């Protein structure tokens, strides 16, 4: 079987992590199994549902479609890295205050997708937000509260930036 083992170095949530993994091991599995960052969820393992989205070098990517070895040397942010010093980020707070989650399984992928998106587009329109999360499946909320939350987060972040 595929036993080629690679040494991998990643900066994950501001911490340098080194580990070895088989070539075939996905980034998602490494984050979850090797680094114990189980906030990244697997909903389909074929790149459709978006639950496993993490931020690699500033871009939101599907960690189920990337081998860990491909991410070698990258900077990765997972849902665990969004809060600062244990305080929820404005985006996370906006999700809570807009009731933008129910079961919470899609939430890490929604948050990472939205976090990367808002950095690219800090003052999006409603339809731009809808488009940004159109590759993330949520079965509970019907999305509307998630869109509300991301728009609310954009406002909160702008206010925070103004201060």
């Amino acid at each position, binding site marked *: *079987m595929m036993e080629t083992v690679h040494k991998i170095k990643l900066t994950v949530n501001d911490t340098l992590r080194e580990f070895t993994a*088989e070539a*075939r*091991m996905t980034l998602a599995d490494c984050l*979850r199994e090797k680094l*114990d*960052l*189980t*906030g*990244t*969820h*697997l*909903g*389909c*393992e*074929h790149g*459709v*549902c978006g*639950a496993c989205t993490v931020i690699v070098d500033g871009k939101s990517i599907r960690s189920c479609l990337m081998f860990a070895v491909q991410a070698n040397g990258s900077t990765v942010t*997972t*849902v*665990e890295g*969004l*809060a600062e010093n244990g305080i*929820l980020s404005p985006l*996370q707070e906006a*999700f*809570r*205050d807009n*009731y933008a*989650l*129910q*079961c*919470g*399984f*899609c*939430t*890490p992928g929604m*948050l990472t997708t939205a976090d990367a998106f808002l950095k690219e587009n800090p003052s999006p329109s409603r339809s731009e*937000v*809808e*488009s940004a*999360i*159109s*590759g*993330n*499946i*949520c*079965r*509970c*909320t*019907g*999305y*509307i*509260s*998630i*869109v509300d939350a991301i728009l609310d987060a954009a406002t909160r972040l702008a206010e925070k930036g103004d201060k």
Partner: protein
Amino acid sequence: MKHSYIGEAITRIEDERLLSGKGKYIDDLKLPGMAAMAIFRSPHAHAYINNIDISQALEVKGVLDVFCADHLDALPSIPLRLAPFPGFERYLQKPIAVNKVRYVGEPIAVVVAENRYIAEDALDLLSVEFTALPAITTVDQAISGKNLIHEETGENIATHYTVSRGNSDYAFANAGYTRKERFVTNRHGAVPLETRGLIAEFDPVKPLLRLHGATKVNFFNRRHLSDAFRLKEEEVELIETDVGGGFGARGELYPEEYLVPMASRRVGRPVKWIEDRRENLSAMNHSRDIIVEIEIAATKTGKLLGMRGTVLGDMGAYVRTNGGVVPSKAAQFLPGPYRIEAFSCDVQFLITNKTPVGTYRGPGRFEANFCRERMIDLMAADLDLDPAAVRIENLMTPSELPYRIGELVPGDPDATFDEGDHPGALKRLLEEADYDKWKNRQGEIIDGHAYGLGIACFIESSAAGPPESAVVSVAPNGSIEVKTGASSVGQGTETGLAQICADYLDIDIKRIIVRHGSTTLLPSGGGTFHSRNTVMAGNATRIASETLKQRAIELAALRWNCPTNDLIYINGSVQNTTDVLSLEELAAFAATRHETLSATGTFDNEKKLSYSYGAHAALAAIDLETGVVVIKKYFLTEEIGRALNPALVQGQAVGGVVQGLGGTLLDHMIYDENGQLLTGSFADYLLPTSSNLPEITAITLEESPSKLNPMGFKGAGEGGIVAVAAAVGNAVALALKPYNIAITELPLTPDRLRASLRKTGN
């Protein structure tokens, strides 16, 4: 009372952990020495198994065990939990295929290995020889009985029955208007975003079977698992984790609930099984898949006189725990909230070579509402009447309620619709949706899109099943724990129960921790289904909290050596004219007496159900060139008696609507004529996304509190989904009325609509 949480849209206490990636779903749990399990599933819809060669798989480094039916002793049958009609006992599923497979995805063999990568490698090396048999993929093939799926039964009809009330022959003989139609609701399912998963720890010495990842009906499942593994109930523990969505399908006894413990017992280690998405789409219960032939009788002015029909339910290859719920509820809810004195329905449960069917949010209601509400619109069109006026004329009025609907499910007690104002809920909807404007603009073309506003009414039962219990206890550090037998599948149960407990104990909600579901928490529990948590666990929490207050007063009386009637409970403490004892002080005092400050509450609705009801409206725009249906606006009114947390109720309604739009326009488990599932990935099985979201206005009505529980709750989990196909079907039909297209089959996909438009020369 200082604290008041019931009725407030407080934010959820679950959210902090779920937002920061600290939720603990089943795949997040790691136990020392844990192995992984993968399942070899049938690639055939119908075949004999001639030989299973496990030798190569066993040789893979890291493989601990491979087993199939041949390696197991007497296999249990998966029991019926609901709607256990006579005849079903012949079609129960075993946890693993014995000699024959009957649907694509049926478990044939299990591999246990050091990790999942290795387990899946080994699956590829299993070699199974089959003799393929003709697949039965339609109810007509099932009825014909030409090929049999369970040969020993001699038929593919699991059971059938007829239910009725009034005299429909008379109604039809004397009707000025009758019409008959055939409606098809598509096979689809819950498809929660988290696939299923379990971890079993089987210690045969103790003995103890601990199963993590359980949810929904843990106490029922424990009873049957203990039977299956010849253990006492207390030797089986079902532990609930965070759950990534249930919608009716998660937490039932599936084959894997037996196979994972078997694997753990065989290898002597904890074993984890996590379903992949392809497995999930072929192994978790499907739902809907109902064909209804329905005929209505009315006067020439549109007064409904009678309804009769046939419900054909495609049950898939076996009858699982949900028994006949889906077809039987479709039949029961066919007449809906209308005054229809004569009703009769023949219900048939048919076995096919497809994944077994179970409940999915609004089981039977979604289907029944689609058929009946389409029929009413067809009648309105035939008789040149306004669809809204016809409904108002025929809806039951407040003075006609409560109304006994009769025994429309064999073996169920007579059901009774409780009080309410159905025409009022519809009228409110019509105002919100600006119906009067749209009723004269149906079919209007704007930018190549035909517009239609469709409406539909519904009634929905809630809070069925066994009693629910809760224990409230105070720790000496002042924290308060609510334990309930009900489960959380992500709907906010922790928040809702904390709101009730905080109100009744008059304390800050932040002090409360809610623990739910696990069988280790308390002696019994009913579980979570049929929109019952707020009604059942909510009232159990209320009773436990009230009892705890009394207990606090008794303890304070002991402490102060005074009669209890000198004392009052207020603001989280017991007081006399001068002194105060807080709950934590009383808990500490109880501890000195080797007691705890805690109380148990049990709520039993004695099988009397509360019915939520309301109406839906959809404004649809159909692209005439592509056949794509876009829902521009969606409205619903839903009477739920009393909203525990209006924001969470809103979330249930909106989430339900969008899920229902999926079931109406997208979600479809498609099988080919060989019984192959063609929609085994999210590239093929389409779900709603954030593209083309409608504007949704969900109005919660609290005008008719339930009289069956003191807090007035009715279930609020399913009203958002149950009438979506009905309202959208009517909207599309009204939009396309000039083209004379039959809207009788779901889902309403672009290819179907385009094909119909082409056929009528467009």
